[in-house]
């Protein structure tokens, strides 16, 4: 505007004969000078207002030259969306009804026998994860994680989380992976091996999810200290859905962590989960004189799990990009006590119509320890050892084995173990290819040498991972 006015004035000045009058010229010059002055003062005041606006703290978050330019459209409100593609080729023995000897099969759990890194031989597509998350408003954030596979869409996580509770508190509500242990909160794409640790499979079917509430508190200390409590429906293995009003599962956990120098960081934790099962099912064979039948074993009682976890990471000078080492171990102890029963529709079966088999108490332990070493950019190797102890079980053999075959895997004492060796290559944090060898001795009498070739690709706005 100012420029146009000046140009017009200049053009007017440049006009020859017409404006030759000295007085007219002077008047014109004065007018131009006044205009200039007026515009200058207006620009000055605009500049002052701009400076004031920039200095005001609330305003400075508003889009300026910087970050938020692209978000000016309604599309800017779209949540962060990411998709994780996973698939594999697996070579392993053909074992019907794979289970872990000595452990109650987690078959009642949603994941059944075909969880992530499942039991399919040959080429297979793993669950594809769809993750959508966004801030709901200044007080809440929401996240949805759906695992998709042929004909099924399983809601892995769907929760809200508070942002504004303050004083170190965070409340989470909905369905979420429980904060117990270390690996339990990680989705399969974040695992360092192609499958879950054996003990996680044995205890939770893969991981333990809660439908309920989680309250976490971070202490205001130099040492990282975090305490959490969860209450939930408790429908997942090792519990069962009990159609009740109260709390079905309770867990407590505590984590501590910190740095040692510039290159080391660690975290350790202790967690406890208690839940109840009613007529939790598993397949057993009975002692029918007419030939064994497949009958349903049922456990009704309390199940408690104790987990100790530890993670140590080394990255020279705090730069993990070129070389780093990650040590990780978890110890588990599960104790259950309640009543055993069996049921069958077959008339000749000793379980016919449902028969109580007395008290059952069990205490089982196990764990895993792993090391993953990135020896050069993009390349990592890792070794994991899994060990389980089917532990002690107390029941009345006379009653139980009158109905159930003592050869059933659950009653067998066995110490399952597995060695896994992996090497993976990641172009960047969005793609990973992995080759894994495992010698799996989780079933008595079977040594299964497994080879897995796996890919993990993540598309879109992939959020940051936890430690």
């Amino acid at each position, binding site marked *: 505007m100012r420029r146009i006015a000046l140009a017009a004035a200049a053009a007017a000045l440049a006009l020859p004969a017409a404006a030759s009058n000295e007085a007219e010229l002077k008047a014109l010059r004065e007018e131009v000078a006044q205009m200039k002055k007026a515009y200058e003062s207006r620009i000055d005041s605009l500049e002052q207002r701009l400076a004031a606006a920039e200095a005001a703290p609330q305003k400075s978050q508003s889009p300026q*030259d910087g*970050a938020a330019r692209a978000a000016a459209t309604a599309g800017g409100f779209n949540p962060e969306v990411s998709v994780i593609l996973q698939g594999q080729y697996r070579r392993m023995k053909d074992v019907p009804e794979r289970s872990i000897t000595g452990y109650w099969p987690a078959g009642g759990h949603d994941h059944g026998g075909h969880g992530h890194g499942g039991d399919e031989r040959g080429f297979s597509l793993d669950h594809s994860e769809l993750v959508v998350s966004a801030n709901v408003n*200044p007080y809440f954030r929401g996240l949805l994680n759906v695992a998709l596979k042929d004909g099924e869409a399983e809601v892995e996580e769907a929760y809200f989380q508070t942002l504004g509770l303050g*004083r170190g508190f*965070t409340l989470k509500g909905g369905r979420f992976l429980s904060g117990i242990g270390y690996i339990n909160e990680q989705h399969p794409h974040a695992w360092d091996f192609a499958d879950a640790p054996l003990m996680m499979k044995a205890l939770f079917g893969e991981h333990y999810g809660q439908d309920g509430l989680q309250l976490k508190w971070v202490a205001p200390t130099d040492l*990282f200290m975090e305490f959490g409590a969860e209450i939930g429906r408790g429908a997942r293995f090792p519990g069962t859905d009990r159609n009740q009003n109260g709390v079905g599962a309770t867990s407590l956990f505590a984590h501590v962590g910190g740095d040692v120098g510039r290159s080391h960081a*660690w975290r350790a934790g202790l967690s406890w989960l208690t839940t109840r099962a009613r007529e939790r099912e598993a397949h057993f064979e009975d002692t029918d004189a007419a030939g064994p039948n497949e009958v349903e074993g049922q456990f009704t009682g309390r199940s408690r799990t104790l987990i100790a976890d530890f993670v140590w990471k080394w990255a020279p*000078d705090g730069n993990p990009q070129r070389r780093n080492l990650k040590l990780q171990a978890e110890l588990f102890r599960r104790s259950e006590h309640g009543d055993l029963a069996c049921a069958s529709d077959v008339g000749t079966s000793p379980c016919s119509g449902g028969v109580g088999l007395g008290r059952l108490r069990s205490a089982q332990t196990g764990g895993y320890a792993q090391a993953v070493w990135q020896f050069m950019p993009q390349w990592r190797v890792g070794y994991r050892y899994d060990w389980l102890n089917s532990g002690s079980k107390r029941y009345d053999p006379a009653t139980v084995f009158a109905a159930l075959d003592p050869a059933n895997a659950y009653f067998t004492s066995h110490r399952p173990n597995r060695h896994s060796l992996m090497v993976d290559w990641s172009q960047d944090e969005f793609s990973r290819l992995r080759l894994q060898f495992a010698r799996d001795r989780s079933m008595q009498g079977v040594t299964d040498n497994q080879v897995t070739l796996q890919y993990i690709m993540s598309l879109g706005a992939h959020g940051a991972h936890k430690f």
Partner: protein
Amino acid sequence: MKRFLIVLLALLALPAQAALEVFATGPEWAALAREIGGERVNAWSATHGLQDVHRIEARPSLIARARRADLVIATGAELEIGWLPVVLRESGNAAIQPGKAGYFEAAAHVRMLDVPKTVDRIHGDVHAAGNPHFVTDARVYLKVGEALAARLAALDAAHAAAYQAGYRAFAEKWRSALARWEAQAKSLRGVPVAVQHDAFVYLEDWLGLKRVATLEPKPGVEPGAAYLQEVLVRLAAEPARMVLRPAYQHDAPSRWIAERAKLPVVTLPLTVGGTAEAKDLFTLFDDTLARLLSALTLKN
């Protein structure tokens, strides 16, 4: 005068307050907070000068620090996207969540360069908001400092005047330093350089350096031997005077090129602590200029 009285009253009304806890994502922001706030801020940096701020883990120690922070100073423009959102969320500290007064992003006060027209990971680790390495342009600290002083004043209203005075003192020193650096850098204008990572876009813009080659094929992607060979061919056609490398990056690619193209490698501190000489914001740029100028005097 009225404002002064209000400040005075506020000072009298409040008991001696503890220093503001500042969680900075980089040493440069901790240093800037100290320049402005002096004793009134307890500034701590989540990273040090030899760390790649793109790739930091959301370590427990960072969450513990963020838990107690009154103010988070971040670079923004997605530089810290791989870890800061997790640290903030996990901290349970409501005051420092994005959008709150306790969260300050420097990028909001900077004219961004290299804003991509299309955002697609086929182009590597691109940032939708533009190149986030603006701290290599010393002029940036004036604008960011001014906004930071206003934010500190808003958070700690009792000492608002002190923060404003702190900023004015800093700005005065900084302006004279800027004049000194710009005078020193006259001979750098138009000098062709190769860079290992596009971390110097703003430095080039400020000092008039001319970037003729980037050793990374895409941002954040380490170059392979074949790509470096291509760069070498390009450098033969359009020679550079030096290779610039951020101090936190591995030196192999720049050394490889430098040996073959007979160029000096200049290791530049991107932030305070990047080199032994870069002890604060002033020595950071003293050292940057000294390193650039000494490479210029070397014969090719």
